[in-house]
C-alpha cells in the first residue's frame, strides 16, 4: 500500500497553553516573593520566572499571529484593518526570505507590495484618522446605537428589546462577577487585601475612563483590573506601588488605543522596554509616545518593535543607546523588511561589535584601518549613536569589510545600517519628543465605533456600580427571576398542549411572560400559583360542565390583582381556551391589549435609560439638582416593584387601547371579508356565465386539441431519444474500434509467426551448434534437418502470409460492414429526423388551418350579426331597399376581403412551413453526408495505417494498394456527395411544388368563396321576395278590409237616408190626405230626392272602385316586379279599368246591367243562381251556339266588343312575354274553379242600356322600351301609393267617418 494523501494536524491549543503558562508565572511570582532575596533559591526562582515569562510572551505572540490570520478572514480586505492584516502577513513572509529571495523579482514585488500597503495605511491614518478603519462596519455600529436608544425597537421590535434588556441585565451581572474575580486575581498576585486593595480598586475605577483632550478611552473595571495584573506580571516591581502600576497601565491603555493593538501587546511593549532599559515607571509616558511615533514613521508595528527590543534592549542599554535610538534602529531595518526578533538579534550583534570594535579580530581592525574608520569613535559610548554610525558608514558598500567586521550572519543588518545613517537620523527626530500616542489615541477615540463602545462600556460600568451597591439584594433578585422563570416555564409547558395557538400568539406570550417576570415579583408568583390552581380547576370543570366554582376562583384572582385583566387573558391562553378565543371578541381584544402592555413596559424602560443618560449629562454640566431628579425618575421606572404601582394606570390604559383597537380592527376585518366574499362570488358567477356561454364547445375542442398535441409531443420526444441513441451508436461505431480489433488479431498473428519462426530458428541453432561441436562437419542428418528447418521456415512464412492476407480481407470486409452499418444508422437517424420535422410542420400547418377556421368562423359570425341587424332595420322600414341592398353588399364585400386575406396569410405560412421542412431535410442530408465522409476518412486512415504497418513488417511496397484504397474512398465520397446533391435538388423541387400547391389551394378557396357569395345572394334575393310578398299581402288585406268597410258604411248610410226619406215622405203623404195632385208632387219630389241619394251613393261607390282598382293595380304591379313587362301590362290594365270605372254611369245603386238572378233584363253583369258545379252547375246556351256552365253566386260581366278586343290583346301580350293567356276568354265554357284570370277587374260596361254604349279604346303596343316601362311604372307607383295612403286613411279614420255621418245628417235636415 502506498500513501496517496497525508494530512498533519497539530493542535496548538494556545489559549490553554497561555493559561497554563500564566498560572506557572503566577505561582513562580508568588514563590519568588516569599523567598529571601540573595539566596540561591531566589536566583533559581528569578531565572525560572524570567524563562516562564519569555515563554508566555512567545505564546502570546503566536496567539497574536493566529488571531491576525483569523482577523483577515473577518475584515473587509479594503478596510484599514484589512490593509493592516495584509501588511502584517506580507512582512511576516518577507522576514523569512534570504537575501537572494529578497533580491529576486518575486521578492522585490512582495517588498513593493508591502511598502505600497504601508503607504496606503499611513495616508489613511494621516488624513482621516483610524475612523476609516471601521468604514466597513459603521452602519452596523450606528444601528447598534439606535438599538440602545430605542431599546431595540429599530432592528428587532419587541422581542429584540426584551432580548437586549435581558442581555443588558445579564451582562451587568456577569460584568460585576467578572470584576470581582479580576480583583481577586489581582489581590492574589499583589498579596494586598483590605484597605490596600481598596486603593488598587480606586485606581482601577479611576482608569475606567481616561480623558485625552476631547476624547475618552473607556474600559470596563474588569479590563482595567486584568490590565493591572498583566502589567504586574510583566514587571513585578510595579506591583509594589498602586500608583506606579496605575501609571504604566494607563499608558499601556493609551498605547493600545493609539495603535489599535490589543492591550496585551501594548503592555508587553511598554514593560519590555522599561524592563530592558531598566527604566522607572515615570518613563512609561515617553516610551509610549516613542513606540507610537516609531510605528507611525516606519514600517515596524509595535508588536514587531517589542519583539526586536526583547532581543537587543539590554545590549542597547549597555552601550548607551537610548530607547529613541533603539526604536529608530528598528525602524531603519524594518524599512528594508528586516523586522521583529530577527531584526533584534541582528541589532544586538551589530551594536555589540561596534561597542567592542577595539577587541575585534585582526582582520576586522585592518579593514577599519584600510577604510579610515576611527575605532575610538565607535567605542565611545558617550557619543550619540548617530555619530558612531556615521563613522561606521565608511564601511558602506564594502561587503568584504562588513563580513569581516560583523560576520556573515549580520551582513544584512550591517549593510542597511551603514548605508542608511541619514534615514536613521530622520527616524530619531521623528520618534523623540512627541505626543504621538496621545494624538493617535484621541483620533481613534472620536469615531463612531469607539463612541458606541464607550457608551456600552459606560453603561456596563454603571450597572456594575449599581450592582455593587445593591449586592446584598442581588441574590434575592436573582432568586426572584429564577422563580419567575420557573413559573413562566410552567406556563409554557402547559401552553404547549395547544401548539398552534401558541405559535399564533408567541410574540404576545413571550412579551407578557417576560414583562410579568420583570414587573411584579411576589405578586405575580402568588397570582400565578392561584391562577394555575384555578386553571386546573377550570379544566376539570369543563369536563363536567360545572364551571361556577372555577370561574369564581378565576374572578377572585382577577380582582385581587392590579393587572388582573392581563392575568385573566393569560389564564384564558393558558387553559387552551381556543374555542373561546375564536368566538369571543373580548378575549381576542384582550390578547391584543397584552401586546400593548408589553410595548408600554419597554417604553417605560427606555424612558428610564434616557433618564439615566440625561442625569449623567446633567451631572457633567454641574446641574446636580436636575441630575437627582432624573436619577429619581429613572430609579422609579427601573424598579420592578415600583412599576407595578406607579405605572399601573399607564399599563391599564395601554391595555384598554389595545383592546379597543383590536375590537375595531376585528370588525373592520370582518366587514371587509364579507365584502370580499360577495365580490368574489359575483366575479365567479360572471366568469361561470361567460364560460358557459363561450367556453363550452371551445373547451371541448381545446381539450381534444391539447390531448392530441401532448400525445404528439410524447411521440416526438420518443423519437428524439431514439435519434440520440442512434447518434451515440454512430459515434461509438467508429473505425478505431474495428482497427483495434484487427490490430489485436494482427499482433496475435505476428506473435504466433514470430514464435513459430523462433522455434524453427532454435532448432536451426541447435543443429548448427551440433555441427560446430563436430568440428564444423555436418552429418547427413544435420543436413536433412537443416533442409527440413528451411522448408518449415518457408512453409511458416507462406502460411502466415496467407493468414495475413485473409486477415486483411477480413479487416476490409469488417470496415465495409461497419460503413454499411454506419450508413444504415445514419439513414435511420435521418429518417426519424425527417419524420419528426415533417410531423412538426404538419402540426404547424394543422394549427394554421385550425386558426384559419376559427378566424373564418369569427368573421362569419360578425357578418351574420350585421346582416341580421340590417334585416331588422329593413323590416321596420328604417332602411330603404336600396340602402339595404347597398349595405348588404358592403358587408359581404368586407367579409370576402377578410376571408381572402386569411387565405393569403395561410398560404404564406404553408409555404414557409414547407420551406422549413425542406431546409430540415437538406440539413439532415448534410449531416448524413458529413457522417459518411467522416466514416470513409476514418476507414481509409485505418486501412492505410494497417497496410503500412504490415508493409514495414513484411517488407513490401504498399504504394499501389494505398492508391487503390484512396481511389475507392474517393468513389465513395463522390457517391455520398451525389446523394446529398440529389436530396438538395429534391428539396428545391418540393419547395416549388409546395408553393404551387399553396397557390392552387388559395385559388380554390377563392372559387369557394365566390360560390358561397352567389348562394348567399340567391338566399338574400329569395328572402327579399318573401319580405315583399308578405308586405304585398299585408297591403292587400288592409286595403280590402278598408274598402269593405267603406262600402258597408256607404250601403248603411244609403239605406238610412232612404229610410229617413221614406219616413219623411210618408208623413207628407199623410198630411196630403189623399190630395192626388199634392201626392203626385210629393212622389215626384220623393223620386227626385231618392235619385239624388242614389246618385251620391253611386258617386261615392265609383270613387271607392277607382281607388280599389288603383290599389289592386299597384299591388299587382309591385308583385310583378322586377318583371317589368308584366308590371307594364298590369299598369295598362289598371289604367284601362280606372278609365272604365271613371266613365261608368250608374243608373242606380245596383249597377246591374244584364239580367241575372233576381235581376232585370238588359243588365250586362250580375250573379248567377242555380247549382254549384258539383251538382251539375247552371247551364245555358246562346243563340250562336255558345254554351256555358256556371255555378251559383258566380259573377258575370259582359264586355263590349272593343273592350273584349283590348282584353284579348292584353292576353296575347301577357302570353308572348312569358305570362299566361287569359284563358277562358275565347271559347271557354266552364270555370270549375271560378275562372283562371289572375285578376278580375270589376268592370261594367258604360251606359244604362245596351244601345248607349261608350267605346273605350286602349291602344296597346306589343312591346315597350325600358324607359317607357320605367316611366309607366314610376307614374303608376306614384299615383297608387298616394291613393292607397288616402284610401287606407279614410277607411280607418274614425274622425272621417264622423264627418261623413254629420254630413249625412246635415243633408237629411236640409231635406
Amino acid at each position, binding site marked *: *500500500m*502506498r500513501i496517496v494523501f497525508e494530512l498533519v*494536524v497539530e493542535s496548538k491549543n494556545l489559549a490553554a497553553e497561555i493559561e497554563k503558562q500564566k498560572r506557572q508565572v503566577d505561582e513562580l511570582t508568588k514563590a519568588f516573593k516569599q523567598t529571601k532575596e540573595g539566596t540561591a533559591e531566589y536566583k533559581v526562582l528569578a531565572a525560572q520566572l524570567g524563562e516562564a515569562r519569555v515563554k508566555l510572551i512567545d505564546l502570546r505572540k503566536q496567539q497574536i499571529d493566529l488571531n491576525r490570520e483569523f482577523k483577515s478572514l473577518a475584515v473587509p480586505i479594503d478596510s484599514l484593518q484589512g490593509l493592516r492584516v495584509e501588511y502584517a502577513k506580507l512582512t511576516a513572509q518577507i522576514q523569512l526570505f534570504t537575501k537572494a529571495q529578497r533580491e529576486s523579482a518575486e521578492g522585490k514585488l512582495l517588498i513593493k507590495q508591502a511598502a505600497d500597503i504601508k503607504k496606503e495605511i499611513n495616508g489613511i491614518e494621516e488624513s482621516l484618522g483610524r475612523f476609516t478603519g471601521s468604514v466597513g462596519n459603521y452602519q452596523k455600529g450606528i444601528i447598534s446605537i439606535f438599538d440602545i436608544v430605542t431599546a431595540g425597537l429599530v432592528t428587532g421590535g419587541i422581542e429584540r428589546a426584551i432580548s437586549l434588556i435581558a442581555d443588558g441585565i445579564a451582562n451587568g451581572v456577569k460584568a460585576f462577577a467578572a470584576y470581582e474575580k479580576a480583583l481577586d486575581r489581582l489581590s492574589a498576585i499583589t498579596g494586598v487585601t483590605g484597605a490596600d486593595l481598596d486603593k488598587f480598586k480606586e485606581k482601577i475605577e479611576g482608569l475606567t475612563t481616561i480623558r485625552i483632550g476631547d476624547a475618552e478611552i473607556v474600559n470596563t473595571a474588569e479590563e482595567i483590573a486584568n490590565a493591572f495584573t498583566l502589567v504586574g506580571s510583566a514587571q513585578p516591581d510595579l506591583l509594589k506601588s498602586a500608583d506606579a502600576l496605575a501609571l504604566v497601565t494607563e499608558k499601556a491603555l493609551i498605547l493600545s488605543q493609539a495603535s489599535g493593538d490589543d492591550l496585551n501587546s501594548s503592555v508587553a511593549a511598554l514593560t519590555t522596554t522599561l524592563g530592558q532599559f531598566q527604566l522607572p515607571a515615570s518613563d512609561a509616558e515617553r516610551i509610549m509616545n516613542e513606540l507610537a511615533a516609531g510605528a507611525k514613521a516606519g514600517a515596524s508595528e509595535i508588536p514587531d518593535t517589542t519583539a526586536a527590543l526583547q532581543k537587543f534592549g539590554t545590549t542597547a542599554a549597555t552601550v548607551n543607546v537610548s530607547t529613541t535610538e533603539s526604536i529608530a534602529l528598528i525602524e531603519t531595518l524594518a524599512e528594508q523588511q528586516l523586522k521583529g526578533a530577527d531584526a533584534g538579534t541582528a541589532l544586538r550583534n551589530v551594536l555589540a561589535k561596534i561597542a567592542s570594535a577595539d577587541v575585534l579580530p585582526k582582520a576586522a581592525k585592518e579593514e577599519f584601518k584600510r577604510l579610515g574608520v576611527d575605532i575610538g569613535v565607535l567605542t565611545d559610548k558617550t557619543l550619540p549613536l548617530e555619530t558612531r554610525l556615521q563613522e561606521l558608514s565608511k564601511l558602506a558598500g564594502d561587503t568584504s569589510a562588513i563580513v569581516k567586521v560583523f560576520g556573515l550572519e549580520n551582513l544584512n543588518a550591517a549593510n542597511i545600517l551603514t548605508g542608511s545613517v541619514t534615514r536613521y537620523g530622520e527616524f530619531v527626530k521623528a520618534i523623540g519628543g512627541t505626543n504621538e500616542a496621545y494624538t493617535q489615541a484621541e483620533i481613534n477615540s472620536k469615531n463612531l465605533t469607539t463612541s458606541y463602545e464607550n457608551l456600552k462600556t459606560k453603561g456596563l460600568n454603571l450597572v456594575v456600580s449599581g450592582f455593587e451597591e445593591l449586592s446584598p439584594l442581588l441574590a434575592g433578585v436573582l432568586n426572584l427571576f429564577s422563580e419567575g422563570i420557573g413559573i413562566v416555564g410552567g406556563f409554557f409547558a402547559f401552553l404547549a398542549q395547544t401548539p398552534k395557538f401558541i405559535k399564533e400568539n408567541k410574540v404576545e406570550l413571550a412579551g407578557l411572560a417576560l414583562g410579568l417576570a420583570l414587573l411584579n415579583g411576589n405578586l405575580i408568583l402568588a397570582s400565578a400559583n392561584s391562577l394555575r390552581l384555578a386553571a386546573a380547576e377550570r379544566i376539570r370543570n369543563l369536563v363536567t360542565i360545572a364551571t361556577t366554582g372555577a370561574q369564581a376562583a378565576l374572578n377572585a384572582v382577577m380582582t385581587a390583582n392590579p393587572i388582573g385583566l392581563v392575568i385573566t387573558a393569560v389564564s384564558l391562553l393558558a387553559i387552551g381556551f381556543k374555542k373561546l378565543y375564536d368566538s369571543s371578541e373580548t378575549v381576542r381584544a384582550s390578547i391584543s391589549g397584552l401586546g400593548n402592555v408589553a410595548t408600554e413596559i419597554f417604553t417605560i424602560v427606555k424612558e428610564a435609560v434616557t433618564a439615566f443618560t440625561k442625569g449623567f449629562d446633567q451631572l457633567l454640566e454641574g446641574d446636580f439638582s436636575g441630575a437627582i431628579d432624573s436619577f429619581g425618575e429613572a430609579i422609579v421606572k427601573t424598579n420592578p416593584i415600583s412599576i407595578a404601582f406607579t405605572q399601573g394606570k399607564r399599563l391599564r390604559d395601554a391595555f384598554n387601547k389595545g383592546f379597543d383597537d383590536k375590537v375595531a380592527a376585528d370588525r373592520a376585518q370582518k366587514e371587509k371579508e364579507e365584502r370580499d366574499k360577495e365580490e368574489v362570488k359575483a366575479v365567479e358567477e360572471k366568469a361561470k356565465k361567460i364560460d358557459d356561454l363561450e367556453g363550452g364547445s371551445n373547451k371541448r375542442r381545446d381539450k381534444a386539441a391539447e390531448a392530441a398535441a401532448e400525445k404528439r409531443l410524447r411521440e416526438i420526444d420518443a423519437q428524439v431519444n431514439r435519434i440520440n441513441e442512434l447518434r451515440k451508436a454512430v459515434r461509438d461505431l467508429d473505425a478505431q474500434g474495428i482497427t483495434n480489433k484487427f490490430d*489485436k488479431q494482427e*499482433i496475435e498473428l505476428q506473435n504466433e509467426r514470430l514464435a513459430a519462426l523462433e522455434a524453427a530458428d532454435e532448432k536451426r541453432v541447435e543443429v548448427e551448434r551440433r555441427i560446430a561441436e563436430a568440428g564444423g562437419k555436418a552429418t547427413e542428418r544435420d543436413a536433412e534437418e537443416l533442409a527440413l528447418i528451411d522448408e518449415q521456415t518457408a512453409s511458416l512464412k507462406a502460411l502466415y502470409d496467407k493468414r495475413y492476407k485473409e486477415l486483411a480481407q477480413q479487416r476490409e470486409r469488417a470496415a465495409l460492414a461497419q460503413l454499411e452499418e454506419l450508413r444504415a444508422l445514419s439513414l435511420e437517424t435521418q429518417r426519424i429526423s425527417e419524420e419528426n420535422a415533417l410531423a412538426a410542420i404538419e402540426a404547424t400547418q394543422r394549427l394554421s388551418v385550425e386558426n384559419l377556421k376559427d378566424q373564418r368562423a369569427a368573421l362569419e359570425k360578425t357578418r351574420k350579426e350585421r346582416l341580421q341587424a340590417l334585416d331588422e332595420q329593413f323590416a321596420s322600414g328604417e332602411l330603404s331597399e336600396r340602402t339595404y341592398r347597398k349595405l348588404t353588399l358592403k358587408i359581404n364585400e368586407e367579409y370576402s376581403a377578410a376571408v381572402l386575406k386569411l387565405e393569403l396569410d395561410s398560404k404564406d405560412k404553408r409555404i414557409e412551413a414547407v420551406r422549413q421542412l425542406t431546409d430540415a431535410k437538406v440539413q439532415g442530408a448534410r449531416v448524413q453526408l458529413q457522417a459518411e465522409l467522416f466514416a470513409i476518412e476514418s476507414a481509409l486512415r485505418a486501412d492505410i495505417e494497417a497496410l503500412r504497418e504490415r508493409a514495414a513488417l513484411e517488407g513490401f511496397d504498399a504504394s499501389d494498394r494505398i492508391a487503390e484504397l484512396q481511389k475507392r474512398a474517393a468513389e465513395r465520397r463522390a457517391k455520398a456527395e451525389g446523394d446529398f446533391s440529389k436530396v438538395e435538388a429534391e428539396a428545391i423541387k418540393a419547395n416549388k411544388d409546395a408553393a404551387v400547391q399553396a397557390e392552387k389551394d388559395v385559388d380554390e378557396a377563392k372559387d369557394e368563396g365566390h360560390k358561397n357569395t352567389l348562394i348567399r345572394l340567391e338566399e338574400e334575393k329569395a328572402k327579399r321576395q318573401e319580405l315583399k310578398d308578405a308586405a304585398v299581402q299585408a297591403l292587400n288585406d288592409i286595403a280590402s278590409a278598408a274598402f269593405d268597410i267603406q262600402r258597408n258604411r256607404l250601403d248603411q248610410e244609403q239605406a238610412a237616408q232612404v229610410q229617413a226619406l221614406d219616413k219623411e215622405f210618408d208623413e207628407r203623404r199623410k198630411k196630403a190626405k189623399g190630395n192626388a195632385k199634392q201626392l203626385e208632387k210629393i212622389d215626384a219630389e220623393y223620386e227626385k230626392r231618392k235619385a239624388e241619394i242614389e246618385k251620391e251613393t253611386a258617386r261615392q261607390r265609383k270613387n271607392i272602385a277607382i281607388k280599389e282598382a288603383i290599389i289592386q293595380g299597384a299591388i299587382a304591379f309591385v308583385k310583378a316586379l322586377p318583371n317589368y313587362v308584366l308590371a307594364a301590362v298590369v299598369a295598362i290594365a289598371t289604367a284601362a279599368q280606372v278609365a272604365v270605372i271613371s266613365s261608368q254611369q250608374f243608373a242606380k245603386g245596383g249597377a246591374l246591367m244584364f239580367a241575372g238572378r233576381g235581376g232585370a233584363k238588359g243588365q250586362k253583369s250580375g250573379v248567377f243562381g242555380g247549382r254549384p258545379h258539383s251538382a251539375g252547375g247552371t247551364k245555358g246556351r246562346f243563340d250562336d251556339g255558345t254554351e256555358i256552365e256556371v255555378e251559383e253566386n258566380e259573377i258575370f260581366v259582359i264586355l263590349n266588343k272593343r273592350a273584349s278586343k283590348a282584353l284579348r290583346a292584353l292576353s296575347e301580350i301577357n302570353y308572348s312575354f312569358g305570362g299566361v293567356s287569359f284563358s277562358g276568354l275565347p271559347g271557354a265554357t266552364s270555370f270549375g274553379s271560378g275562372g283562371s284570370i289572375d285578376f278580375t277587374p270589376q268592370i261594367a260596361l258604360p251606359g244604362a242600356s245596351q244601345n248607349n254604349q261608350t267605346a273605350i279604346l286602349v291602344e296597346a303596343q306589343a312591346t315597350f322600351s325600358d324607359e317607357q316601362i320605367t316611366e309607366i311604372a314610376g307614374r303608376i307607383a306614384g299615383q297608387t301609393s298616394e291613393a292607397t295612403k288616402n284610401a287606407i286613411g279614410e277607411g280607418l279614420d274614425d274622425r272621417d267617418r264622423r264627418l261623413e255621418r254629420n254630413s249625412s245628417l246635415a243633408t237629411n235636415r236640409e231635406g
Partner: protein
Amino acid sequence: MSIVETLESVLKLIQDELRAELAAQGHRLTGALENSLQYKIEVKSTVAIGRIYSEDYGIFVELGVSPERIPFGKGKGGGKKTSYYIQGLIAFWEKRGLSGREAISAAFATAHVHAREGMPSRASYRFSSTGQRTGFVKAVTERNLDRIGDIIAEKYGATIELEIAKQFDSRIRIRA
C-alpha cells in the same frame, strides 16, 4: 469535537472525493483501486496525522508513466521471462471479458501502444469525463483545500495547523 474526529471528517471527505474522481477519470474496472483507498489516523502528542492509502499502482495512476519507462520492448531478448507488466495487462483484459489467447494478444497490443505513447494512452482519454487521466489526488486536494480549512475551522476552531500532502514537493500549509 476532538482533533481526531475533525481529522476523520476531513479524511472521509477526501476518500469520497478520491473515489469519485477515479470513477470520473475512467479508472474503474473492478473497483479495486477505489476500494483500496483506506485512511488511518495516528496521534502523537498534539499532532494527529491522517493518511489515505491506496494500492501500489495508485501512484502510476496518479502520475502516469512515460513511454521510456514502460517495461516492454526494450532490449529484446533480455530481461525476465515473465513480465509483471504483461501479466498485469493480461489480467486486465481478462477482466474485460477476453479469454486466453485473446487476452494475451490484447495485452501485447496494449503494451505496444503504451510503449509508443506512454500510460495513459491517448485513446484511453475517451473513458474520462473530466478530460484528465492522471492526477486524481492532486485534483482532489486542490479542489478541496478550502473545504478542509472550513471543516477544521468549523469543527475544531482556530488552534489547528495543517500540513497537507507530504508526498508533494511543496508542503501546503493551511491555518484554520
